[in-house]
């Protein structure tokens, strides 16, 4: 059950990788930003789920809004001659690290707890 998201990732990847998709190369960098926003939403969602604070609307809207904002910033930056997309990359990437470390903590803490409980029980 816990490995379902990973399976989902692989399935989604394979579905599209086999098909011959042509995207105009101008959109290439925007797509990469969308992927990063998606990654951030997923890890944020996993962390919220572990904490018991998962909300459907927040999760779904989070991905959509973050992606739109990141792409809008990148586009505005292109027009202005400023690398605004960097802001999106830094923040989204930073949050991925943050969420991942929290998930790791929960994982290891529960593992340590289970070990203690086993000891206490026996």
């Amino acid at each position, binding site marked *: 059950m816990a490995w379902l998201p990973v399976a989902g990732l692989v399935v989604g*990847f394979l579905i599209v990788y086999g098909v011959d998709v042509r995207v105009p190369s101008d959109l290439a960098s925007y797509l990469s930003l969308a992927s990063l926003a998606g990654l951030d939403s997923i890890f944020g969602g996993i962390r919220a789920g572990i904490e018991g604070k998962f909300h459907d609307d927040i999760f779904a809207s989070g991905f959509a809004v973050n992606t739109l904002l990141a792409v809008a910033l990148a586009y505005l930056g292109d027009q202005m001659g400023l690398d605004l997309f960097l802001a999106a990359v830094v923040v989204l990437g930073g949050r991925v690290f943050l969420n991942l470390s929290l998930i790791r903590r929960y994982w290891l803490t529960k593992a340590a707890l289970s070990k203690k409980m086993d000891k206490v029980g026996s």
Partner: protein
Amino acid sequence: MSVFVESIRGKSWILKITLMSVLLGMLLAVSLKTQQQVKSETGLTTTRFPILASTIASANRENKKLRQQIEELGEKITNYENQLAKGSGAARTLNQELQNAKFLAGLTAAEGPGVVVTLQDSKRKLKENAPADLPDLPNPWLIHDTDIQRVVNELKDNGAEAITVNDERLIATSEIRCVGSSTSINGARYTAPYEIKTIGDPKTLENGLRMRDGVADSFPDPEMIKIEQRNHVVIKPFTGSRQIKYAKPAKE
């Protein structure tokens, strides 16, 4: 670790996360594919484009300056030749022959009446579904090297005395060759629109192009070719490098 897995078993949010993962997987695949495509076409990912663009721009500026220098030096040489020839009859005759030869070789600027032909890509776009078995047909709405060649050929046939394409003087060994999405003329790259200047009789030159079923009619969109007669056309000299490595004067 089993406590962790227990605590998240059966929670509904896992399914939603999974759904989003599928979407993310698809996005990643598209991103990867696009970058691979870009890399195979240009040899680098899109992040390097801006840097290269500015490098190209500065190289172009440098090029322009150098060409101007070449033109000015060429004029100086002609002046010195003319100066040296003053006085002696023999020198003057020889110099006249020299200047004529230089003109024919495309080494000196020229001016006179003629036409200016402008070739540009049509605004119409090729429909997205090219026939599956012939995906590489040349796009009829774009100007190809063969179009420029045909125009130049027709002009030559109608009395053109000097021809430049985008200010590149055509000499005997000039090529007009397709290089990817641009055209190589005298070793330099150009893209549409192409401005072809010629010195000759303006009427003859235009009529030659506008013959029924001639060059002008061969363009699917009449907007692609514009012909303008002019009383005064300035033709720039050849500014490329000429190296003669193999040819030698033939021994009589």
